[in-house]
């Protein structure tokens, strides 16, 4: 394989020390800091770090309004219950959504793995499966929003169940997360198409960036997707279960 243009100034992998010494040497090396990390992946991590702070702001403001309201918070477990003909099961839709997102994380990780093995078809197939899980997650969220807005009468400024801040916190947090999932699905499909065509086998240049693509892009995509799953873990715990 052709050497990457960004990695020319880097010491040989054998020279790199592990642990704390490695940490100090990497940061003081007067070269690129993140050795053995493709620039795309480093940039994705920096983006995810900034995204962490955005979601934290949402969750912390949710904590603030919930702690400071003098009116009782709506009974979340009952609000999000769903009945399949019989007794309503609390939080069942949310639980299903959680499992769907975890399943999609698993298929994503397999896609990354098969990508590095240069198994073009399996990678593309797994990416498409991941995208389908993601799309079904967004679909369930749309169903949940519709149910809450139309049947329960929840608005960002009021709701019949309790503290009026519930609506704004709910729509803001889950809306922003759902937007992340939707964008993820879009990019999963785009990358699946490129993998399927074999762009990454011949290191074809990208349409917008004119940079050579390779299977590392699948891993970068995976980081984003796992992050979306990660954020859901926190939303599930703090918004739905608390």
């Amino acid at each position, binding site marked *: 394989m052709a050497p990457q243009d960004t990695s020319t100034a880097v010491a040989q992998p054998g020279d790199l020390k592990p642990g704390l010494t490695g940490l100090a040497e990497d940061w003081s090396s007067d070269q690129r800091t*993140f050795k053995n990390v493709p620039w795309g992946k480093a940039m994705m991590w920096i983006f995810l770090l900034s995204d962490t702070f955005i979601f934290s702001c949402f969750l*912390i403001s949710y904590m603030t309004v919930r702690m400071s309201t003098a009116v009782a918070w709506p009974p979340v477990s009952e609000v999000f219950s769903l009945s399949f003909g019989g007794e309503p099961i609390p939080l069942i839709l949310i639980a299903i959504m959680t499992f769907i997102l975890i399943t999609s994380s698993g298929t994503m990780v397999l896609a990354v793995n098969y990508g590095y093995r240069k198994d073009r078809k399996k990678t593309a197939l797994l990416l498409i499966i991941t995208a389908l899980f993601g799309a079904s997650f967004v679909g369930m969220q749309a169903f949940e929003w519709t149910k809450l807005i139309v049947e329960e009468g929840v608005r960002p400024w009021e709701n019949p169940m309790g503290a009026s801040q519930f609506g704004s916190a709910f729509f803001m947090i889950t809306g922003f997360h759902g937007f992340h999932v939707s964008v993820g699905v879009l990019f999963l499909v785009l990358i699946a198409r490129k993998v399927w065509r074999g762009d990454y086998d011949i290191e074809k240049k990208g349409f917008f960036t004119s940079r050579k693509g390779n299977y590392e892009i699948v*891993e970068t995509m995976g980081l984003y997707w796992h992050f979306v799953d990660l954020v859901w873990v926190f939303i599930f715990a703090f918004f739905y279960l608390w």
Partner: protein
Amino acid sequence: MAHAEGQQHPLSVYIKVWVLLFVLSTFSYMVDYMHLEGYLRWSLILLFMFLKAGFIIAVFMHIKWERWALSFAICTPPVVLLVFIGIMVIESDYTFLTRNLFFGTGS
């Protein structure tokens, strides 16, 4: 060598963590289903949440195998959020007291 940079690990690690995430999610759902309340509920929610988050970051996002230069750059900045949380807890306590004092709605 562009491909010495990739993260390649045996599939069995991923499968194990995948199953574990399912189990942990079931546990956190059971916390609600069993109607656990109070500190037991909150501590269990946090426990399962941090375990899930940890496994996703460490294994699925490969932080476990990254060099410390990267994992420290990613994992240490969010620690300052604890300060933010602390500030907002104080702020909301004060708002809650003021609201009760002036509006007297109670709960």
